């Protein structure tokens, strides 16, 4: 309860100061702040534990799924109340570091797998090796490794996901087209479906990790990797530039988040979009006639491995309850509740084939793609590497640099940072 208590206490002081100052002020001044009762709420009972949780799951199916998982936890642990705060994807990591530096962190956060190691190396996370370090065999190797820094465990994986191609069936049927399976088909299909008021394809190219997550599959599809960004990065960037130049993709994707891509798709403004399984539920609710296909292959098929980890903080006000929540949420029970409702893939070995959506053909596309999903495991400097990737993507999408120049510049930054 630490954070909110100090906050209210501070506010109480402010209110009191205000009130007393107002009394001494001239009578003509009609003060209507009405803030006095606030200080009273600071005195809560100390038996009730309030667990502060931050995430970026504030909308759609992810939100309701997390609410269900939280409710199940609260039922199983009377006396603990979870107070969730949801951020925009791009804001959570910043808020955690800024909060850490500012001396105010939550107890638990549900974070992108790629951020976990960075937070741990900043000293923000609680070392939970003692409590859960022995659970490695419960999880798939990729997700598990994202919680490890220097042989210590700093959290547990909640779920996994990857990116696939969503397409608008009505538009495809109308044009007599099939979901593209190669780059060439993707390009020609996108072009065929583009018109004055519809783009062939939408994706997220925003200047944060989402942009990197969406771009890297194109790099891997060339058969290359970050160590060959100079050449293969240029090929991938060139492909996206071709889509923009063809009029098949708006250059505005440079500012799109993954939610923005969905907005375009749902409103019939994009015939295809690249997005993750968490959108399955949202699209069903939106009542749109869509299909899901694996990402089109270049030299080889590839997609990105994403997902969320649950972490607890070194400065947590409720460290024990935090670990309880961490353990519950990532247990068979908790993870199943969350994955079933949100449409995410499980990171737990024992849930394979047991999720509600396991029989859903759309979901099976994502599951099948796990075989070609690459993890973003590029060491401690990954953040800086990712920033360089985003920069090159932004430059190409906005026409500030040619793909070749952007790629070679990024490669110069990236190469020395790779492990």
């Amino acid at each position, binding site marked *: 309860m630490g954070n909110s208590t100090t*906050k209210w206490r501070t506010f109480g002081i402010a209110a009191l100061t205000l009130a007393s100052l107002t009394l001494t002020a001239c009578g003509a001044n009609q003060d209507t702040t009405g803030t006095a009762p606030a200080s009273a709420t600071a005195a809560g009972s100390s038996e009730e534990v309030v667990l502060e949780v931050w995430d970026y799951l504030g909308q759609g199916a992810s939100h309701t799924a997390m609410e269900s998982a939280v409710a199940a936890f609260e039922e199983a642990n009377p006396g603990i109340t979870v107070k969730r705060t949801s951020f*925009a994807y791009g*804001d959570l990591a910043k808020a955690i570091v800024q909060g850490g530096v500012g001396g105010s962190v939550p107890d638990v956060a549900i974070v992108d797998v790629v951020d976990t190691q960075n937070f741990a190396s900043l000293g923000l996370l609680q070392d939970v090796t003692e409590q859960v370090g022995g659970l490695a065999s419960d999880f798939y190797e990729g997700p598990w490794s994202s919680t490890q820094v220097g042989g210590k465990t700093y959290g547990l994986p909640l779920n996994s996901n990857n990116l696939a191609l969503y397409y608008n069936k009505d538009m495809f049927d109308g044009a007599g087209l099939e979901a593209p399976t190669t780059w060439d088909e993707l390009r020609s299909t996108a072009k065929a479906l583009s018109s004055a008021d519809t783009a062939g394809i939408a994706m997220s190219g925003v200047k944060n990790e989402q942009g990197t997550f969406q771009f890297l599959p194109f790099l891997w599809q060339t058969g290359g990797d970050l160590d060959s960004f100079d050449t293969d990065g240029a090929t991938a960037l060139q492909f996206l530039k071709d889509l923009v130049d063809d009029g098949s993709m708006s250059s505005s994707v440079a500012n799109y988040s993954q939610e923005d891509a969905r907005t375009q798709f749902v409103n019939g403004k994009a015939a295809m979009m690249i997005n993750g399984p968490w959108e399955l539920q949202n699209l069903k609710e939106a009542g749109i006639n869509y299909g899901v296909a694996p990402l089109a292959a270049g030299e080889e098929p590839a997609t990105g491995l994403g997902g969320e980890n649950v972490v607890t903080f070194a400065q947590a006000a409720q460290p024990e309850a935090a670990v309880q929540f961490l353990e519950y949420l990532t247990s068979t029970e908790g993870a199943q509740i969350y994955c079933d409702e949100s449409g995410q893939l499980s990171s737990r070995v024992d849930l394979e084939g047991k999720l509600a959506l396991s029989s859903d053909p759309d979901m099976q596309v994502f599951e099948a793609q796990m075989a070609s999903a690459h993890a973003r495991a590029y060491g401690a400097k990954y953040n800086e590497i990712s920033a360089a990737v985003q920069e090159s993507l932004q430059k190409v999408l906005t026409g500030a640099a040619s793909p070749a120049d952007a790629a070679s510049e990024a490669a110069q930054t990236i190469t020395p940072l790779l492990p």
Partner: protein
Amino acid sequence: MTTPPTTPRAARPPMRRSTAKRSAALKSAIAWLIAAAYLFPVYWMINTSLKTGKDMFAVPPQMVPEDLYLGSYAAVFSPTYGIPQAFLNSTIIATSVLVLTLLIAIPASYAVARLRGRVTTSMMIMLTVVQLLPAIAISVPLFVMFRQAGLINSYLSMILADISVTLPFAVILLRPYFKMFPYEVEEAARIDGLSAIGTIIRIVIPTIRPGIIMIGSFAFLMAWGEFTFALTLTTEQSIQPLTVALNRIIGQYGTAWNDLMATAAVIAAPVLILFIVLQRYIVAGLASGATKG
């Protein structure tokens, strides 16, 4: 004092007067056109806030929403975006800034207007300089200071930071009002037995009410629209004001334009109402320059 030169104007033949009238009418028409073009973005904000997701992406854009959709306002007032809480936070912050600014600025302006000494003069210079500095330059050290004091994520930190913007202009704008107040009246009051403080409160302040209303409304408006300090000094949504909330929604739903415009309209509404009600005070304050934080 303008009497002698005005004679030729009175002697103007009637024909010239009617051309003058016609040119005034023409000017008026042009002025309305300018105002309409200028205010188009505000209209577009309201227009878009009343459109459905499909209509806002219509090509060509609908100049008048085809079917009025209030869903965006429903979304704004639901807890989804956290706007009701942010509205409350903005109100708390702006009202506190308003009160504290008046409490600090009124005596200080009196001091610099009437009781000039070396200290008050250098204070005046300091205030003048400070209002010229970028907010971001102050917010970096303030962030670290408030962190050491455990005040990050508190209303107090934002309120105190906002005063750094409102105080300088309040003192600068209020000082002339005190200066213009006739000294003899004050002396007379004091001879009648009122203390110095009593004179200020009972006699001077009621007389310069327009100035106080002006700086009061400015303090409120500035704090209501303040963004830089709120962005840098808080990370918790539960205490962030509307401006930061809007910025947050842009980060996640950057193309949900109807919701974004509805949020923008909700933030703008109190500002516009206050402006309409207190227009003459605000324009007078603006015209005297030295503002714009």
